[in-house]
């Protein structure tokens, strides 16, 4: 464990949808070198909280966030914070693979293009190749970069979405149940990939699958009813939970 300052910090975060409170007073640190997993029963607010980290809740009408969220010490919800740059620095992968209806190449090139990251065509091609390679997809698609991204299999689509997120060189990658729509083989490949990407990016993964959390993460946060119940090293959470509710969930008493 290093003692470097955390990549992202959240303290006292509340989220409201209209009059309904979805998240109550959540504080958490995300460290650069770890994979952090958010677990909890469905509807516990783990995805909602994830979306506060890159301000995707802004796109939902009626959603309101209060509290303090910081990226490298900068206030994410400050007036001076530019959402465009924030989201480029904090990438996101969604529950259902959502490649754009464009070619594989264009899917990955989309981010670098809009943010102006490539200096030339060759540079762009290099970014695409590197991103696809890192996402473990290059060998499968290098001969058909012009094919539509939607023509790939579900697992490949999700890796394409990860490649797309990597292409803008983010500092943090948020993954919202990235494997819930995939079969076990594809899930295993994504988990391998997360393992490979660890350290290069701070990774936060929401999952309802406790085995997955145990396999891929170093830190685990357990959410229940919009509150953060327990947060600590994954090994501790799974072997020696301090809270009764965590224990009940992990041993399968509800969920």
């Amino acid at each position, binding site marked *: 464990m290093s003692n470097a300052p955390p990549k992202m910090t959240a303290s006292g975060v509340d989220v409201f949808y209209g009059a309904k409170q979805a998240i109550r007073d959540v504080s958490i640190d995300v460290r650069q070198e770890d994979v952090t997993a958010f677990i909890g029963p469905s509807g516990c607010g783990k995805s909602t909280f994830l979306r506060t980290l890159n301000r995707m809740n802004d796109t939902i009408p009626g959603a309101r966030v209060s509290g303090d969220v910081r990226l490298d010490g900068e206030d994410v919800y400050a007036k001076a914070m530019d959402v*465009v*740059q924030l989201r480029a*620095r904090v990438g996101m992968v969604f529950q259902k693979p959502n490649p754009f209806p464009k070619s594989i190449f264009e899917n990955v090139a989309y981010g670098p293009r*809009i*943010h*102006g*990251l490539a200096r030339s065509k060759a540079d762009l091609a290099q970014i695409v190749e590197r991103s696809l390679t*890192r996402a473990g997809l290059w060998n499968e698609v290098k001969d058909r970069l012009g094919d539509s991204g939607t023509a790939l299999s579900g697992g490949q689509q999700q890796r394409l979405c990860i490649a797309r997120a990597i292409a803008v*060189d983010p500092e943090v990658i948020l993954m919202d149940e990235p494997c819930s729509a995939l079969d076990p083989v594809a899930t295993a490949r994504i988990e391998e990939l997360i393992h490979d990407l660890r*350290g290069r990016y701070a990774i936060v993964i929401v999952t309802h699958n406790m085995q997955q959390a145990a396999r891929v993460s170093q830190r685990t946060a357990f959410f229940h009813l919009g509150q953060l119940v327990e947060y600590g090293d994954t090994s501790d959470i799974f072997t020696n939970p301090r809270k009764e509710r965590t224990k009940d969930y992990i041993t399968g008493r509800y969920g």
Partner: protein
Amino acid sequence: MSAAVSAERRPTDWRTASMQRRVRQRYAAERRFRLLGLAAVAASAAFLLFLLASMLARGAGGFVETRIGLPLDLARAGLNVTPEQLRGPRSDLALAGAGLERAVDSAAESAFPRAGGAALLSDAAWLRVREAVKRDPSLLRRRATIDVPVASRLDIAFKGGGTPAERSVAHALGPLLSRGLNRDFLGGADSTDPTRAGIWGALKGSLLTMVVTLLLAFPIGVLSALYLEEYAPRNRWTDLIEVSINNLAAVPSIIFGLLGLAVFLGTFHMPRSAALVGGLTLALMTTPVIVIAARNAIGAVPPSIRDAARALGASPVQVVFHHVLPLALPGILTGTIIGMARALGETAPLLMIGMRAFIAAPPERLTDPATVLPVQIFLWSDDVQAGFVEKTSAAIIVLLVFLLAMNGLAIYLRNRFETRW
């Protein structure tokens, strides 16, 4: 391996001046795009408002007539009529035969010899005198001043239009002129004199036509929607019906006019220009619209309601007529009103079946020659007399009031009864 890849990483530095400039440009593009959208909405709305405002500005005068105080001395006009003849149903005939029209003309000649005499008066002027005499027979024995409508040129000049010469005449007569509601416009039929032309004849024609259309299109539309949505087996025949309906809904309206001309007039020898034929033609055009709206409304009724009724032993007909149809009715009515509004505003197919004749009397029966409001607007817009400009716009105002009322009713129904399942 981890170290090697780390070395190749080049973090994006968002703080450089060029990167910040780029972000600012992107936001500027965002604002421009958003503004473009707002401009498109504003342009469309502005066009609508301009259209409505220009019709209102031009048409408001159509509801108003200019009157002139005409000094009359009917006792000396040598009218051949007795007060007894003024009672009873033949009074109009008696007054016409008595030479009232001539008396009014000569009164105008002697009252305004330099301004134009009888040419100043509308063709309807003596009719107004006749009504006054019928109301008050004592007018036949004394001198009186009666307000009568003026001719179209003077009317336009008094309202601020026309040539400078006409305006100076209007100015000279100023103290004698007054304004009043043009009852002939709302209560009369077409006329060659714009001051007498009215829309009641066309309105009645529209009404008769719409009755025929509604009586045919509504039941046929609803029944076929019920069949297609609830009972029709999935086969090639059903597909054919569906394709026909969807296609008919998109066929240009003038094609329906050609159909009416060839079939109703050409083959069945129905009367030209009749509300019956107009209604039939528009019914063929409106039915597909109603079918499509009704199918959407019926399809929106959740299957659970059908299952519940069936589980109680209701027959397929009972399920539909007792449960599905009542629930779908608001949606069906909304669609029907919108379809009827479209039919009410339709012109082209009716021109094809001859509904462009000059009809000076409101139709009494479905087979009488008739015209409808949009066609009347078209006919007046073609007229060279300047007086018809304001009549055309005024008729448009009346038509739009009807259409807005119908659409408003449809929107109200939709909001009032709309159920989200």
